[in-house]
């Protein structure tokens, strides 16, 4: 539903036909900043994505070059270096990916420090929330406003000591590549790499096959829904709308809520939109407040970036000092759902 805003656009476009002009963007003296996205998840290894912003000015486009020469460090609460994350070469990734070997602990404070040449250093501090305790009471295929959805009934335990807990629920489909590994003369080959050889030898005795599923660094966001009036999505839109994630501020009490994910993409090839093959991830997270604030404003921006003079722009919250992005602490429970034949 685009409602009147779109109608207004129609009217405007109709009325303004032939009256569109490019305006020069004023030159800027601003310098590019380092951009760091890092979700430090309790129990997992530290990861970061590093990039660079572009000052808005004449002659820019929306291409972002990966920053492969950054120095990304993870430090402890006492500012002692725990580890320097290493760059993971992956041509499929949109932002340069850095990974370490340190497993993140709940209730622990970490600093990160990222140096990108020609930009200011980025620092941030985050304390990983306590482990989240989630009980999935049931799940059910149902409909919501005419849509096929999968409903989860979650019960999340109250945060300790009557504190606050910032809950984020989201669903992704991680794309998978199906392949077969065959062994020929004691050498293992992937079919996709050696298709001709495979076709030639597949019927020979001694050739063995193993099916293999490769999960890719590529995801599809699944629209999610809530009907819970306590959800902070109320600050963004209506409860019949769909979101990237459902957000709750949990104060002292257990959270008992229904979480819906769009079922269109669950099964590959099930509809005319042809969802890709993969597995479905449903994440229930407890995140730091700074990360939560970022996600809430991000939800608004996704809905409406505010890049035109009709609508008020949204300022995204960030805790990356000296740069942009977000460094968020998180403890999560992930549910893996396999609908596709892998």
């Amino acid at each position: 539903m685009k409602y009147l805003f779109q109608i207004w656009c129609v009217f405007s476009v109709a009325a303004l036909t032939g009256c569109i002009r490019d305006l020069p963007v004023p030159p800027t003296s601003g310098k590019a900043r380092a951009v760091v996205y890092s979700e430090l998840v309790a129990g997992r290894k530290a990861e970061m994505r590093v990039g660079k912003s572009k000052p808005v000015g004449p002659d820019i486009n929306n291409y972002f070059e990966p920053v492969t020469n950054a120095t990304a460090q993870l430090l402890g609460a006492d500012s002692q270096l725990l580890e320097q994350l290493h760059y993971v070469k992956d041509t499929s990734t949109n932002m340069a990916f850095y990974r370490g070997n340190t497993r993140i602990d709940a209730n622990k404070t970490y600093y990160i420090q990222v140096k990108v040449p020609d930009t200011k250093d980025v620092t941030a501090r985050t304390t990983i929330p306590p482990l989240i305790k989630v009980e999935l009471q049931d799940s059910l295929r149902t409909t919501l406003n005419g849509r096929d959805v999968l409903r989860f009934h979650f019960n999340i335990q109250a945060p300790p000591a009557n504190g606050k807990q910032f809950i984020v629920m989201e669903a992704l489909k991680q794309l998978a590549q199906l392949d077969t590994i065959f062994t020929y003369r004691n050498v293992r080959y992937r079919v996709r790499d050696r298709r001709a050889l495979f076709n030639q030898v597949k019927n020979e005795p001694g050739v063995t096959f193993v099916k293999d599923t490769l999960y890719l660094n590529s995801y599809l966001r699944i629209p999610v829904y809530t009907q819970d009036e306590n959800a902070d999505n109320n600050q963004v839109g209506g409860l019949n709308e769909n979101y990237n994630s459902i957000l709750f501020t949990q104060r002292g009490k257990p959270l008992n809520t229904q979480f819906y994910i769009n079922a269109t993409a669950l099964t590959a090839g099930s509809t005319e939109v042809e969802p890709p093959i993969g597995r479905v991830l449903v994440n229930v997270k407890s995140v730091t407040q700074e990360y939560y604030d970022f996600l809430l404003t991000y939800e608004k921006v996704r809905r409406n970036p505010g890049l035109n003079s009709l609508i008020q722009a949204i300022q995204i919250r960030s805790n990356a000092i000296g740069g942009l992005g977000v460094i968020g602490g998180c403890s999560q429970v992930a549910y893996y759902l396999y609908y596709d034949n892998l």
Partner: protein
Amino acid sequence: MLLLAPVRVLRAQSKQDPMLQQAYNPPSREGTILFFIQDIQRQTGISISYSSSFLHLNKKVQLTGSEHSTGQVLNTILQGTGIQAAAVNGKIFLLRESSQTQYYTISGFIKEENSKEVIIGASVYDPVTRRGTISNSYGFYSLQVPDSCTSIIFSHIGYETLLHPLPPPDDGQLDIHMQPRNPLQTVVVNGDQDSVTLQAGYIRMPVGYVSNFPSLLGEKDVLKSLQLYPGTGSSLESSSNLLIRGGGVDQNLYLLDGVPLYHTGHLFGLFSIFNGDAVKDVSLYKDAFPARFGGRLSSVVDIRTRDGNMKEWHGKATVSPVSVSTELEGPLVKDKSAMFLSYRRSLMDWLYGRSLTRQYGKYALSDINFKLNQLINNKNRVYLSFYKGQDNMFIPRDNTPFPLDDDYRFSWSNITAALKWTRVISPKVFTNTTATYSRFYNTFSQNSDFKLASAAVNFNGKGVSRIRDIALHNETEFNVSNTQKLSFGGGYTYHNFAPTAYSSNINPGDAIQRPAPKYYMSELTMYGEDELRLFDDRLTLRPGAHFGALIQRGSLYRSLQPRMMARWDFPHEQYIQASFAQMTQFIHQLTTPVINLPTDLWVPSTENIKPERAYSYSLSYQKQWETKWRFNINLYYKLLKDIVTTNTVLNIFDNSDLWEKKVISGDGYNYGSELLLEKNTGRLTGIFSYTLAWAWREFRTLNSGRMFPYKEDRRHNLSLALKYRVKPGWSLSASWKFSSGSPFTLPAQIFPDYDWGRNINGKLDERYSPFSNNQINYLPFITRLNNFRLNPVHHLDIGTTIYLGSTRTLHHTLTAGVYNVYSRSNPFIVSYDQFVTMSYDEIYPLQLYQYSLFRTLPYISYTLKF
């Protein structure tokens, strides 16, 4: 000298004088003062001395029958006049009680000679003392004149000035009929109104003024005409959205015949709903608000429609390539009751429907105004007025410029009705009681065949948004004396708001069926005001107070709003005025900024959302050169508290969209100066106005809590409008408007999108997210809100009105002109990046796109009048 002597001294000497005790038998009990004086002189031979300047000899008097002496008769006939009889030196002198001048009150209605329509804002004054008043919104005036006064001047910019001899005091109500000036002559504004009741922050436009200057498509627009004056503006080029001194559109109280209106725009605000042909008088209050007004922060726009001709039937029809407008007025019972009916409709769908409907859709607007005006007697009058405005829009899904998923239909309408009873209780007291009904109703529907789930569904959705007010108000004016006028009154309004109610044929499944939110509220108002003139009329003080209360379940808000106006008049028609006003607004509009959508949501103050308040200060100086020129300069400062905004777009067609969760409140600071130079008479007339202004907003959760320029902040606003009467029946006009560019938030930087950076693709389910078609791979980094200025808006428009002559009783007039002569591309919408963005993977240049609305646009219309 005796006439000037204090009567008390003489009375003591003459009380027992035989001349006053001389027997006298009056020939009748009834007669004028002059009759009895002459009869006493004739019967008794006593000479009686008096001055006719303070004694109204034609006053009818009645004796009681117990008078048998000259003294007794004189005492009776002079009773209440402040005059006493005294016998001195063989004569009877009729002397004043004291040496002070005596006053008496004249009152009545001022009407147009031919139509008997009442005239608002006519000046009434004693030419000797220059003391006077102006007729109120119902044409009523009340003035105390000295007994030395022999005639009164009645003047109005649209009428020939009238010098009327003063009737005897007991002649009852003095109704005046003024002759209209030639309608093709220059109509001037606020020309000869030197009455002190006019204020610096007050603009009144009389009938005819609206059509003085060129306009977009030739449509006479009341609100756009007001935008020629300083301190006023519009959010977009050619928009009828009226902005006053840095306030929002929702901060103006629009009253149509006293009925509040909530939505005043046709076609997204390009035209206002006020049909220029039906309007009689427009008043705009920018500061020094009279105490009777309340409920909005920035201004009051009081629009009165025509009453109808009580003498003859007349009609008018105007046709242009885009619209037709007709009117009919006349007496139902001559000199007793009259009606006025007008109808306006756009013709786009009729004339160009076939080709346009296919490509873009269909649109039509219409307005109907009706008024019935019944004179019960010379003290009582009843008005019944009705208005309905309607917009209908249809957008097909396969329209050329912007294909959609659905067919859309919108239909929104305003209905107002008012029943007024005006009553002259006494020459000094006038009261009006009004019962009003106001309704804004917007329906929206969408229809499509689409796939939500596995099966295709024919989707039908319908939304309704409604406001309904029923009110009863009373206003009373008590002219205590020429130096004191009291106004007081009160009212009750029942509000019923149903901001959004949406339903569709889709099976909700697990979705909770939430009832549409509805609000029932009672609003009480009371006010009192005292206008005082001191120091020989040089100082005018107008203290007042307005009390308002909003009562609804769960909350009660009360607000006592002090008002003060002080003005010091200098010689040579100059004055300085200072004013303070507190205004409180109980209801809020949660709007898409800039454009005037019928889906803009009006919501009340609740437990969580406080009323908005404004504290307005102004200082002004005015100088007038006779009736020709007027120069005015104003300084103002306005502090806004608890004003509300949303930092997201509300989806009114979703009952679950809880608006209260999206509202944030903060403060505002508006200040600036205004300058006006106006020439009112002669062949060349015109207005020059300039405004230098600032408007800031401050919200704790926006812009890191720092102040930022308000969306409607315009640093400079300039208007120049001229009209030249080439010869009777032919005039040329031109207007040039300039406005600084509006603020716009331009990102300082862009950086990789969070999802894109993590290789998360896909977009939201568009059908349930109005703005999700923006799939961009970057996020904007915004350092300051509204940090960039769009290009200024300016355009020159020219027009002409030619009276073609008449055939029998038919008069023909042609109006033509050109809007935006030099074809300026003014910013209407500016977008960083495009509205319909690309997919994640596409690399494309980022730049600003400016969409303009109207380039050079001619107009022509033909008017037939009988």
